C-alpha cells in the first residue's frame, strides 16, 4: 500500500516538475510547481514527517507560490517570447548542468552512497514529530536557526529600504499594498 502510494506521488512530482520548466505559460508553470510541492508534501507524510509535510504546503504552496502568482498576474506576463543568443546560451548551460547532475546521481547510486538512514524511524518510538523537530531546532541547530532568522530580517529591511527609496513624489496613501490594489477607489 505505502510503496504504491509512494510511486503514485513520485510520478505526480516528476511529471509536474517537468511541466514547470516545459510549459510556456508562466501561470500554468507556477501552478504545476504548486502541484509538485503538494506531491512532495504527500511523500513527506508517507515518511511519517507530518510536520514537515504540512509546513511544506502552508509555506511553499500556500504562501510563497501565491506571491509568485500575484507577481506574474500583476506584471501580466504573457507567453514566453524570449529568443536569440541569450536563450540559446541559457538552454545550453541548462543542458550541461542537468547532464552533470544526472551523471553525479548515477555515480552516487551505483556506489550505494546515500546520506542518512534508508528507512523511516519507527513512528511509535517518537512522541510526536512536531516535538522532535522543535527540540532539535532549538538545541543542536540553534545557531543555524538564529542565523537564518537574522538573514530573513536583513532581507526584509532591504526590501523596505528599496521600496521607500523609489518614492520621490509625495505618496497618495501609506499602505504599500496600494500599488497592487485597484486604482480609482481611494483617490
Amino acid at each position, binding site marked *: 500500500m505505502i510503496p504504491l502510494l509512494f510511486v503514485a506521488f513520485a510520478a505526480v512530482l516528476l511529471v509536474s516538475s517537468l511541466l514547470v520548466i516545459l510549459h510556456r505559460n508562466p501561470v500554468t508553470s507556477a501552478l504545476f510547481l504548486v502541484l509538485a510541492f503538494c506531491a512532495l508534501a504527500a511523500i513527506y507524510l508517507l515518511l511519517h514527517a507530518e510536520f514537515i509535510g504540512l509546513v511544506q*504546503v502552508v509555506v511553499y504552496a500556500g*504562501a510563497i507560490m501565491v*506571491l509568485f*502568482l500575484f507577481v506574474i498576474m500583476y506584471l501580466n506576463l504573457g507567453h514566453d517570447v524570449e529568443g536569440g543568443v541569450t536563450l540559446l546560451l541559457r538552454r545550453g548551460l541548462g543542458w550541461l548542468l542537468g547532464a552533470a547532475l544526472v551523471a553525479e546521481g548515477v555515480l552516487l547510486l551505483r556506489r550505494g552512497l546515500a546520506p542518512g538512514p534508508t528507512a523511516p524511524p519507527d513512528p511509535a518510538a517518537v512522541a*510526536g514529530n512536531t516535538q522532535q523537530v522543535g527540540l532539535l531546532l532549538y538545541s543542536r541547530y540553534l545557531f543555524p536557526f538564529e542565523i537564518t532568522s537574522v538573514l530573513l530580517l536583513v532581507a526584509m529591511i532591504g526590501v523596505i529600504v528599496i521600496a521607500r527609496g523609489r518614492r520621490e513624489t509625495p505618496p497618495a496613501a*501609506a*499602505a504599500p499594498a496600494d500599488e497592487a490594489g*485597484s486604482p480609482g477607489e*481611494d483617490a
Partner: protein
Amino acid sequence: MAALFQDPLVQLAFWALVKVIVILVVMLGIVAYLTYFERKIAGHIQVRPGPNLVGPWGLFQPFADILKLLLKEEFVPDGANKILFHVAPVLAVTPALTSFAVVPIGPNFLVTDVNVGLLVFLAMSSLGVYALTLAGWSSNNKYALLGGLRSSAQMISYELALGLSTIGVLMMAGSLSLVDIVHAQHGAFRLGPLALPHWFVFTQPVAFVIFLICAFAETNRAPFDLPEGESELVGGFHTEYSSMKWAMFFLGEYMNMLTISAITVTLFLGGWNGPWLPESLGFLWFFAKLFALIFLFMWVRWTFPRLRYDQLMAFGWKVLLPIALLNVLATGTIVTWLGNR
C-alpha cells in the same frame, strides 16, 4: 471478502469513508439551508420578510434556488483560460471540505485524529486562495482580475495573523492535534457556585478576537468582501461565472464559513465539551456552538460596512499582526513561568 474486512487497515478505510460520506451529506444539507437562514436574517435586519413564498415560511427556497441555478446557461467568456476557468470553482470547495476531516465533532465522531490536525486546517485554508485568484485571472476580465489580485493580497495578509493567533492555544494545549486541544478544554474553574468553563476563549481572549476577525477575512465575507466588492468591481472574481460554476463559489464560501466556525469552536469554545449533557451527546454542544458562531458571521455581514482597501491592509499588517505576536510572547512567558513553578 469477510477475511479482507477483518484487516484493520481495511476497516479503518471503510469507516473513514462512511464518516466522510455522512459529513459530506450533512454539510451539503446545512449549507443549502445556510443560504436560507442568511436571507431570513438579512431580511430581519433590514425589516423585510425575506424569502417566504416557496413552501411554509419559504422553507423550500433552497431547492428552488438550486433548480434555478442548474437550469441557467453555462457561459465561458472569449479568451478565457478554459482549463483553469473550470478548475477554479472546484478548488473553491475542496479545501474547505478537506479540513473537516480533522474536526472532532463528538468524542467518538471524527474522521481521523492526526497529530498535526491544526496544520491540516492551516494548509487547507492557505490553499483556498487559489480558487479566487485563478478564477479572477482565467476569466480574462479586468474586474475579475482585480478581484483575484485583491483576494490573494488579503488572504496572505490575514493568514499570518490567523496562524499566529492559534499559537497561544497550541502552547496552552501542548499539542497540534485538535482532539488533544478539545481535551485540554475539559472541566471548569470553580469558585463556589460559579463555574467558568475551561475554554480557551477565556484564557486566550486576545487570540480569540484576532482569530475571529481573520476568519471573516479568510471567508471573504463583509466587512472584508473586497474580492467581490460589487459596488466597484461588478462581481469581483466571479464576474464571468454563471450557473452551477457560480454556485460552486457560493458553496465554497458557505463551506468555508462552516469549516472555520467549526475550527473556532474546537480551538476556543471547547469543542464538544459542555455542561449537563453526557459525553456521548457532546455533538449537540458542538452544533449549538457552531450555529451560534454562524449566526454571528451573518449578523456581522449584514450590519458592518465594507472596509476600504488600504484600511484593510493597514489593519491586517499594522494592528492584527503585532498584537498576535505580542500575544504569543505573553502566552509563552506565562506558560513557561507556570511550568517552572
